[in-house]
């Protein structure tokens, strides 16, 4: 038996963690005992996506690559939150505070870099920490602190107008701050752009609301206890209450330096990534310097990780890293930008081709040297980027007609079809995955996008190539992509689609959520599935449903809407939004008696009493003496109405009367997601019926248009006309039919507008108007049964289902 070698990795970031993954993938677990040290107290996360976390488009929990559990499962001993302080190369040991040591046969240093903090006054408080309000942007913790602080800040200054600084600026802008970018140079992103492109970017950013100060040298941060502003060398000042320093990075090399390794800008390594003066020690990532280059992007760094894994596992002993040609697609504040190679000509005979369109913010520049592409800048045009990147990466000879590269496929079809791009074209730039590799993965049996991404790693870096990966997979499968089957499950914990689940539930007579777990999930309770199952069972069984209250979200346990402080909001039903002085008086009395903290008219024309403690809910309902408005649940909500024929001089249909009828009929009908309705008395559409989940609009001749799938929330979508009918009764009938079909076929939490788009309006008309499948009579009967099963949940104020149903705190009944 061979004894395992000790492999120690210092740094658990993008390079260190990827390297260990690559070692494991090459069977390295049999050859090495792996120990990792990471100063950050987590598993590892995708640092690139911190920009998205800052911008609010990603949740921190979604950027984790490997959890702490992953290390355990793979036999990797991780010291999380432990910073290595000393390497003794003679005894081959690393030391960390608290007496933690680890002996190594092979040591990999992947300590990355830190934000460079230019010298200036007033940065630190007495404890030597950044003064409150000053931040660097490098780690998840930085990001977390910045987000918290931004919540109470008004005006931020970002020092540094490079890529990272601009991303920080975007994040802060998204969070509602006034943002000033303070840059030392004469134009933005001077490392990647020339002056012209920098100037265009400047104007684009200003249009988005970023204020930019150029050629400003910051000399001090102002403020005694917290930031109040910045002072500049030219004597001017800027008031601000938050400062983000983003003035470049410095490799973390102190550890290597103290241990006597050769260090210049980074730790100097050979082509096999070993250090210049110790072949048992290796360095990769932003802390390494290879052939004079220190890389600050993830693609070359992952390439280094792969080569080193080959070297150490013997998979390919002669694997060598020969450097990377740096090309990137960057997303600065949603502006398309691709840069590669040189940004300016270097030799006299370099040919420069440019195209400039200032009004649209488009700038394209090619640098051609000896018939090959030596560099390019593409601003504001994503279409030309893939071809150019490919020509650059492969060092292809250039076409004589340069314009064909600058303006791909100018003609009717704009993007080259997937079939046309060659197998060698790189699709995922972060991981260097070509079209050919994706096609090979599909041929090897990966039939879902997720399976392909897992197998090739395409799409796992910055994620911007995902749509293209999807297109290539579809192409390689001849269109027969199987989606991840789990994507079609109604809930994650039961491996069935909604129709199959309904069938199984009926056949096996499963009437409660725990019965479904027992019957269809091997007895495994899944908390992410409980609420969805409860909603489905209620739809299937109506009154016969065996209601287990723990499967309901708190709102549906206490029939009110939980607020951020744990109190509840109460909205009584006001049919059609038509109330009376008597009702208003009663509501006012209740609001006063129970100290409602706010009384508000809702977007759906109802009255909301906010700030009611849970234990007071039954009393509030009793005193109101009105039915529940169901404003807290996934169900029919309200029907907004306009005044219609009774008072309006334009009205051609009684929208108020119809609205009241709709509300009386459908109150409390549960559905996959909420349904907001409206009726309008004429096409002027004052109640916005055409952008509701379901709407009715009166038209000349006593007719009504029935709209479905409208939206005016985070998405805006005009509904589709399902049909035109002659009477209010027919409106009720069509609406009920659609509701029932949606109840049976909508995925949990799928709004009608997504459902209508997924199913297609033509298909819905065939099913629900033409009755092509002969299901209408059954749908009508089933919705009628649901209507008949309605009970006002607020009657539970008198008959609670459990004595402690509304308890805020249970009094301790000690014995």
């Amino acid at each position: 038996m061979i004894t395992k070698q000790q492999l120690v990795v210092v740094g658990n970031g993008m390079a260190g963690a990827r390297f260990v993954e690559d070692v494991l993938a090459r069977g390295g677990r049999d050859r090495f005992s792996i120990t990792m040290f990471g100063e950050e107290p987590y598993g590892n996360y995708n640092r690139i996506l911190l920009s998205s976390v800052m911008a609010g488009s990603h949740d921190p929990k979604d950027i984790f690559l490997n959890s702490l559990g992953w290390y355990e499962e793979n036999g990797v001993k991780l010291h999380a939150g432990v910073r290595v302080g000393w390497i003794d190369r003679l005894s081959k040991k690393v030391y960390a505070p608290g007496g933690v040591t680890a002996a190594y046969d092979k040591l990999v240093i992947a300590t990355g870099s830190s934000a460079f903090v230019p010298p200036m006054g007033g940065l630190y408080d007495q404890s030597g920490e950044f003064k409150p309000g000053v931040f660097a942007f490098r780690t998840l913790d930085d990001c977390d602190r910045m987000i918290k602080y931004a919540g109470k800040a008004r005006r931020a200054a970002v020092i540094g107008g490079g890529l990272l600084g601009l991303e920080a600026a975007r994040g802060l802008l998204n969070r509602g701050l006034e943002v000033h970018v303070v840059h030392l140079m004469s134009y933005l992103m001077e490392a990647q752009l020339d002056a012209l492109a920098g100037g265009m970017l400047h104007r684009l950013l200003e249009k988005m609301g970023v204020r930019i100060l150029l050629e400003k040298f910051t000399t001090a941060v102002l403020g005694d206890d917290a930031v109040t502003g910045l002072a500049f060398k030219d004597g001017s000042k800027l008031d601000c209450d938050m400062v983000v320093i983003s003035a470049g990075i410095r490799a973390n090399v102190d550890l290597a330096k103290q241990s006597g390794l050769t260090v210049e800008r980074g730790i100097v390594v050979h082509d096999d990534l070993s250090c210049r003066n110790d072949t048992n020690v290796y360095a990769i990532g932003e802390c390494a310097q290879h052939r004079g280059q220190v890389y600050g992007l993830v693609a070359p760094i992952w390439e280094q990780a792969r080569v080193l894994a080959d070297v150490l596992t013997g998979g390919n002993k002669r694997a060598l890293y020969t450097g990377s040609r740096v090309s990137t697609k960057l997303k600065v504040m949603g502006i398309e930008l691709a840069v590669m190679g040189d940004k300016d000509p270097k030799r006299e005979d370099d040919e420069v081709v440019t195209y400039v369109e200032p009004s649209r913010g488009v700038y394209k520049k090619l640098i051609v040297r000896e018939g090959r592409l030596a560099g390019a800048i593409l601003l504001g045009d994503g279409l030309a980027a893939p071809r150019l990147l490919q020509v650059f990466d492969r060092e292809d000879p250039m076409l004589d007609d340069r314009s064909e590269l600058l303006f791909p496929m100018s003609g009717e079809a704009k993007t080259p079809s997937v079939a046309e791009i060659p197998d060698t074209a790189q699709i995922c730039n972060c991981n260097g995955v070509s079209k050919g590799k994706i096609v090979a993965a599909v041929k090897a049996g990966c039939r879902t996008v997720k399976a392909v991404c897992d197998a090739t790693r395409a799409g796992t870096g910055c994620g911007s190539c995902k749509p293209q990966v999807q297109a290539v997979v579809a192409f390689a499968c001849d269109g027969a992509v199987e989606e991840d089957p789990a994507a079609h499950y109604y809930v994650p914990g039961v491996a069935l689609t909604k129709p199959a689940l309904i069938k199984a539930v009926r056949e096996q007579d499963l009437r409660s959520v725990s019965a479904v777990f027992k019957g269809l999930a091997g007895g495994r309770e899944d908390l992410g599935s409980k609420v969805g199952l409860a909603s489905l069972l209620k739809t299937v069984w109506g009154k016969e449903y065996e209601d287990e209250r723990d499967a309901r979200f708190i709102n549906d346990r206490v029939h009110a809407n939980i607020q951020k402080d744990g109190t509840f909001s109460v909205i009584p039903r006001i049919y059609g939004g038509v109330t009376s002085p008597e009702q208003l008086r009663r509501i006012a009395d209740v609001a006063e008696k129970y100290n409602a903290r706010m009384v508000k008219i809702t977007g759906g024309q109802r009255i909301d009493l906010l700030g009611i403690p849970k234990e007071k809910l039954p009393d509030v309902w009793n005193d109101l003496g009105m039915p529940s408005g169901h404003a807290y649940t996934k169900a029919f909500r309200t029907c907004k109405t306009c005044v219609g024929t009774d008072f309006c001089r334009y009205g051609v249909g009684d929208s108020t009367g119809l609205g009241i009828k709709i509300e009386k009929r459908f109150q409390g009908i549960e559905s996959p997601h909420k349904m907001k309705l409206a009726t309008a008395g004429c096409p002027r559409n004052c109640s916005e019926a055409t952008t509701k989940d379901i709407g009715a609009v009166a038209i000349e001749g006593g007719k009504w248009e029935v709209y479905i799938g409208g939206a005016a929330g985070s998405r805006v979508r005009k509904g589709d006309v399902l049909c035109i009918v002659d009477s209010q009764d027919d409106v009720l009938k069509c609406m009920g039919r659609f509701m029932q079909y949606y109840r049976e076929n909508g995925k949990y939490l799928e709004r009608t507008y997504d459902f209508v788009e997924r199913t297609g309006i033509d298909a819905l008309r065939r099913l629900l108007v033409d009755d092509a499948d002969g299901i209408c009579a059954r749908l009508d009967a089933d919705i009628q049964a649901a209507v008949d099963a309605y009970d006002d949940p607020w009657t539970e104020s008198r008959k609670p289902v459990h004595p402690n149903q509304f308890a805020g705190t249970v009094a301790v009944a000690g014995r």
Partner: protein
Amino acid sequence: MISAPPSTDRTLNLGPIEQIPPGEGRRFQIGNVPVAVFRARDGQVFATQALCTHKAGPLADGIMGAGKIVCPLHSYTFDLATGAPLGHTCKALKTYPVSLSADGDILLSIEGQRPSSREGKQP
């Protein structure tokens, strides 16, 4: 309400488990410490700090299952037995040893606290 618990000063009897509906949690006030006690459908009981470490959401109002609790405010999940955050980076919840007595009473261990009582001057 009986106000004089005969318990030692570490293990408290909170009364019958039936005070909590199956599969749900409820909040109890122990001295000045609010504690959420959970009753799983399979009979296990758990006790954690009552307020979420994210933004103080009322955990007893969350949805529980398979040994986990989802906070009702922003849906962060925690392990009920250990309090560990699952899939996010909020602080772990404090947990308290809890068990059932032979006749189904909740026995909670908590350092140096006595349960609140009507006579006491609890909030």
